[in-house]
């Protein structure tokens, strides 16, 4: 997938919630490439234009796995922290 494709994809998946400056995608891609999580390659698009395609590597997949687990745990923790707060808010409003 090329940079534009990735940007479109993110936007579609997040249902337009996440809006980033699409240019800032590229420094992040460079960092990931240097870390060996993704591979980059120049290819022709179906419309016969030259574009750089990015692809996840085995290392990247492994790292993604770790991050997903870590993120899930984090979200869980956040949810647990947030739940009583909201309940408390409700209590207060009831009084």
């Amino acid at each position, binding site marked *: 997938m*090329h940079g*534009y494709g990735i*940007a479109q994809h993110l936007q579609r998946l997040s249902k337009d919630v996440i809006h980033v400056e699409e*240019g800032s995608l590229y*420094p992040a891609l*460079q960092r990931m490439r*240097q*870390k060996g999580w993704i591979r980059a390659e120049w290819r022709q698009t179906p419309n016969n234009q*030259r574009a*750089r395609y990015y692809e996840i590597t085995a290392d990247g997949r492994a790292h993604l796995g770790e991050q997903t687990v870590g993120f899930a745990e984090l979200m869980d923790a956040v949810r647990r922290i947030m739940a009583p707060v909201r309940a408390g808010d409700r209590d207060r409003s009831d009084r």
Partner: protein
Amino acid sequence: MIREWVNRVRDWFRRDVLDRELAEELAFHRRLLERDATREGVGEGQVAAAASRRLGNVTRAREDARQRWSLPWLDHVYRDIRYAIRGLSRARAFTATVVLTLGLGLGANGAMFDVIDGMMFRPLAYLRDPDSVQRFYWQWWDQERLVTSQSGPYTRYLDLRRETTAFSQFAAFSERRLAVGRGERVREERIGAVSASYFAFFTARPVLGRFFTESEDVTPRGAAVAVLSYPFWQAEFGGRDVLGETLRIDNVQATIVGVAPRGFSGVNDADPPVAWIPITTYAGSSGSNDATTYYTRYGWGWMHILARRKSNVSIERATVDATTAFQRSWSAAAIDETQLPSVTRARPQVVVSSVRPGAGPDPSLEARTVIWVSVVAGIVLLIAAANVANLFVARALRRQRETAVRRALGASRARLLTQSLVESVLLAFVGACAAVLLSQWASAAVRTLLAPAGSATVQAFANQRTITVTFGAALLVGLGIGLVPAFLVNAGDLPTRLRGGARGGMVEGVRIRAVLLMLQGALSTVLLIGAMLFLRSLTAVTGLPLGYDAERVLVVTRVIEGPFPGVPALRSMTSLLVSTASALPEVESAAWAATVPFFSNSYRTLSVPGVDSVGRLGTFTYQVTTPDYFRTMSTRILRGRAIVAEDRQGAPGVAVVSESMARILWPAQDAIGRCFRMGSDTAPCLSVVGVAEDMVQRDLTGTQRYHYYIPLDQSTRTVGNHMLLKLRGDPAVMGERVRVALQRVLPGGAYLTARPLRSLVSAEQRTWRMGAAMLLAFGLLALGVAAVGLHGVIGYNVSQRMHELGVRVALGAQRFHIGLLVVGQSVRYVVVGVLVGMVIAAWASRWVEPLLFRQHAIDPAVYAGVALLMLAVAFAASAVPALRATRVDPASALRAE
């Protein structure tokens, strides 16, 4: 983590490409966004703006990405290197001096490392698991002296192989020079006599045929087979299929069964054998009594042992194991050899040590000398480094204001230090390149000095290890000399230095430079003293009275091929050769001889009436010869007469003895008419008819010169194989012609080799010649480097003091005194250096003394001579700056400020 850094460094190198690619990528993205905008119906004029909005701050993105592939320190180093190259290529003279100085210093060390590594440490080619392979060295006490030997009898090998448990592999080997080929083409070559197990120590596979097997290496006599070395196969057989052909090696008509691979030289890569034959084949056909007794008796110590330690056995345990077996073997030998002392007295032990004898318990004089010379090379490098540091300091001082300004403008100390280091390391590396070329040539020269003539097989290109070490040393030296000026320049507070200009804050630098100069002077003094000591040793060695004149003597050696022809046949062949030789126009006189100095010796137990156990006095060597011997060798008869033709079989037994022998056996009495017996005390009496001057038979520097001569015609035991010919010209020129003329009268089955006697003598002097040559070369090199350094510093000082000197002249100082002031400074440095150097030399003298010959390590004449030489150099080095100082023009010097 590592990969990320590798990637970053790689990206750094192609950062321009990456930058272009990113721009292209962003442009592509922008095009697609513009297309989207158009599709969404954004107005014509708004498309670009909409795309830009989506894309965000592109410059920021590019900056951020660029940061990912920039490495600030690498950028700095890169810039520093370019800056250094620019600066250095402007200062040509400076660069050339530094590169040359470091090149010489590093080159000298590279060459010495190469030689030492080859002698002691470099793993042998093809050797399997080199760490576990050892050579056995035998040690025992003889009287109060510890004797170390590498060689022992074949029976010892059998004993140790049977009685030890610490070793998994054993091999026996011996290398000797034997006649190879036949007829006119016969030559002496190095041959390895090795057990079949020898090849199993190596990973080498034959390029042709096979190595020989256990069934071909059997007592009493192994099979007549040979394995050729690769170079010999190429040179002699043109690399054709030689399997099944025969090659005569000594007495063996050997069938060639294989060819060793290229680069295989067994355990001797300094002087590799041309072929290998089974050790039992060599021993079993040696043509003497030994041939039938070598595997049952202990009298013939001639071969070495290689063994592989089992993987779980330490060297200490292996030593204990081998020593126990050796002692048992010694006891067995003592039954056979009655003169051997008991185990309790001799305390025999085995040293399980390096395959390379240079790193073993008894290194040769060459190896020990080489170690010394490499210490010297190290000192030369120190001097060179001090010199370069000195030049760097001078440069740093000149740039002081520049650096102060840079500091004031915010350059960090670390940045300035890095810059200085980059410059010095860069120079050191260029020096190392010069050094590798230089050491290439120098190590070949050293090896030629070391190796006996004609046997040197010098490697074609510098060893990988040598190159690595040279560059490693260059890195260290570069860092070292870069640090000195860096610290100097950073010293002192900034405002002072900014104000001070060239003359302010200089004191520090001058002091460091003075110390460096004195250090150079001291080290040069040490080296020159060493060189002079060795030179005087060499003079003493070459001037040693040999007791004969080797200059015009040719040694012709008869080699008998095939079966032993019997004593009568040999005797008639001998007289035919002597009479033919005497009749040749080139020959002045001819004598037959059983032994040749520095080549072979004969000695037997003597019994002398009235003297108890003659053996304890030392070794008495003897010569069996014909009447013309003394005339041929120019050995003087001091009293009595020489051997004459009438001393033949049946006539009373006579002998001529050396002066030392006469003195030790019959002190304060006339030896003429005395009697001694060879062998047992029941042997016939030999009466002394003459006393000859002492002569050097086997050991140039030994003090024992006990030697005697008996007539060939009266000898029952030896017929000998050598003929000594005094020629009417240079034996190196005429030798071959004489040999061919003599070869013609020989029957088949025998051939002659010839060599000048002086080549044997000069081979003995080699170590001293090498030591003297190398120390002198290094000493002069050091002196030259130090002189250049001195000249530079004095010159610099003069230019810095121009103002002061101008004032002095203006106030009425004599020009002569101005000159004296400058020269005096130079002399002061050198005097201190010389004094320090002398103290160091005196301190080191006790380690140098054993390497010298009839020369005290503390020799006032040498010390004084070197001091004078150093002073002369001090004068010469300061002459030009002093002259410049005397021409100072007070007006312009004062105005210049």
